[in-house]
């Protein structure tokens, strides 16, 4: 039996780096330290009937094809399109993302990640008002107040609280839990709220009003007796905890980024954090979902200057979320081909966007069977990044972590990066008149 220690869990944005995986005869026997979600990801490696060969849709359903043929089809689809969309990227390694961005530029397409449907608003707000952030290591060692707003880590990032916020002992927080206070702000009493010291139940869609009330009180103003369904005294006492802590953290999730106001909620929340720094040290970290959605923003920013929703149709990068982002492009019918890498838009996008996706030529690189692999005209299975392929991923606090390879992919499977490189090569060949 091989024992791999310090394995990185390629599932959620917490990107735990302490998993111990036991492998015997190409089967995962155990994944120690991992939470339920992470464990399920490692254990899924043992599933039978994994697709090894690319499938293409013909007159009568899907038929198998070779990788060479699949690569050529994707390349032609991209070259023929006037405005192709290259979407996904959150569950693959940075090295593959980098090739994908080069491909988008080469074919004059739009490249976008799932950030546009989760934390894109956070990025927009950061661009408007700044980003007072820290790393999770600092949180563990220093934070004595953690706020989770619109985020339920108990279910979405199960080890976040045990590794960084609620429970661990840190350098300045020797007593662990006793040295820390947790506030949860959400529309319902979540399981995370169950282990918090204070819970504020905000009426749905009124997050912006609540941030505004916090800031107004903080700036010495007065507020009505009730704002966003919460009594003034509760708002004031939560604010007092924020002002008097030594090192405060605001973790926010899609409950805040996707509730009405979107990026404006975050913009105002960031300003609240900035204002709190007049009293104490306060910071924020977005609770990024997929394990490498942060990495994509990083890589795209190095290569294009912008973090998501970049339109290369004119040969240079243009960025305008709302115009150059996937859901809007698909809903308006503005793109004429879609290439998905490591994502499942068919399951997550609004109906109108999926309807357009179903109408136009499409292809997907994806190790598993998903609604998207059935919807697309062509699917290419790939090796699983972070388990069968090594590579870099960025944790939610923008710390890069090298993911390790712990087992070989079944023969005949290539990594996302290798497949993308083949497509890029083919695209160049076609464009040069081959």
């Amino acid at each position, binding site marked *: 039996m091989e024992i791999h220690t310090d394995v990185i869990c390629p599932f959620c944005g917490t990107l735990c780096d302490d998993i111990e995986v036991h492998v015997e005869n190409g089967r995962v026997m155990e994944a120690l330290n991992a939470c339920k979600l992470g464990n399920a990801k490692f254990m899924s490696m043992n599933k039978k009937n994994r697709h090894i060969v690319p499938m293409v849709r013909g007159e009568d359903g899907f038929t198998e094809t070779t990788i060479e043929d699949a690569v050529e089809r994707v390349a032609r689809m991209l070259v023929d*399109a*006037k*405005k192709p969309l290259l979407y996904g990227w959150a569950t693959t390694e940075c090295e593959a993302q980098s090739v994908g961005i080069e491909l988008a530029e080469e*074919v*004059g*397409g739009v490249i976008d990640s799932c950030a546009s449907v989760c934390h894109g608003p956070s990025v*927009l707000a950061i*661009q*408007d008002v700044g980003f007072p952030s820290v790393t999770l290591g600092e949180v563990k060692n220093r934070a004595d107040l953690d706020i989770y707003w619109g985020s339920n880590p108990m279910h979405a990032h199960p080890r976040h609280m045990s590794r960084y916020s609620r429970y661990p002992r840190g350098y300045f927080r020797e007593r662990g839990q006793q040295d820390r206070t947790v506030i949860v702000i959400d529309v319902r009493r979540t399981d995370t709220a169950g282990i918090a010291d204070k819970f504020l139940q905000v009426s749905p869609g009124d997050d*912006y*009003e609540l*941030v*505004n*009330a916090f*800031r*107004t009180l903080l*700036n010495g*103003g*007065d*507020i*009505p007796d009730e*704002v966003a369904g919460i009594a003034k005294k509760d708002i004031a006492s939560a604010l007092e905890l924020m002002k008097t802590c030594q090192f405060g953290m605001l973790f926010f999730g899609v409950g805040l980024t996707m509730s*009405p*106001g979107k990026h*404006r909620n975050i*913009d*105002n929340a960031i*300003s609240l954090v900035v*204002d709190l720094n007049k009293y104490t040290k306060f910071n924020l970290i977005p609770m990024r979902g997929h394990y490498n959605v942060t990495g994509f923003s990083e890589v795209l920013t190095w290569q294009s200057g912008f973090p998501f929703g970049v339109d*290369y*149709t*004119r*040969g240079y990068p243009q*960025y*305008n*979320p*709302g*115009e150059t982002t996937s859901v809007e492009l698909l809903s308006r*019918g*503005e*793109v*004429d081909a879609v290439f998905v890498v490591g994502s499942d838009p068919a399951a997550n996008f609004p109906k109108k966007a999926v309807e357009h996706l179903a109408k136009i030529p499409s292809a997907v690189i994806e190790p598993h069977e998903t609604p998207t692999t059935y919807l697309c005209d062509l699917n290419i299975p790939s090796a699983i990044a972070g388990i069968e392929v090594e590579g870099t991923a960025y944790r939610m606090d923008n710390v890069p972590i090298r993911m390790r390879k712990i087992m070989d992919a079944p023969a005949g499977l290539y990594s996302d990066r290798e497949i993308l490189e083949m497509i890029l090569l083919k695209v160049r060949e076609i464009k040069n008149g081959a």
Partner: protein
Amino acid sequence: MKEIILKVISQPTVGLEAENIAPKVFACKSSMEIAGLPIYEGNRERRLGDFFDVSGEAGEAEAETRIVIEGDVRLTKRIGQGMRAGEIHIKGSAGMHLGSKMRGGKVTVEGDCEAFCFQEMRGGVVHIKGNAGNYLGSATRGNWRGMRGGTITVDGNAGSEIATFMKGGKIHVKGDCASFAGVHMNKGFIVIDGRAERRIGAEMIGGTIVANEVEAMLAGFKPVETVKAPEIESEKFTGNYKKYSGDHADSRAKGTVWVKIQ
């Protein structure tokens, strides 16, 4: 003033980018030359004449050139981008980024305009006879300096986040306005004759907004006084108005919102 007429032949589904449809570019050109100007259909460079029938005559200078567009150009973006003089008259609905960074001249739209029109405008006169989309007269992404001058009149309704980071000029919406009108506003003047959705003037630190009716005011707005028939920014208003200062979520708040008392 001389006139060039563009008659819409077709609008491709991926849309067009047409910053070349502008008085400055057309000035001193024959209709043949104009039909040969590049226009972008996704990643393909095409000719203006592929999508529009061009007739008429352009003026000797930007200020002498009037462009009339006959038909719907909802899918054509960037018309009149950066214009400084001259005129554009669209006898249909207009696409995104119409008149962005405009500094002068006149634009009239008979129909609606899509989102992101007249961003960071600095001067000129605009009249939208239909409805306007989101982000009308706002700042571009990441910029904290929005519209600085000129006037925009919308006969219909306007979308959300109009006039973000406004620094000057005036927007008059005769209908209703979606949420976040004048968010982060700093200077300038917005008048809404209809109803404004909640979060009007959010995070404003300066400037003036007048609304006939509001869905709700944020906690950061403080009632100051009630004034009968006030004169605001040298315009007379009839009826009683409640004056608020805000948005006191921001310590620099010096903005004013006037709401009519029904």
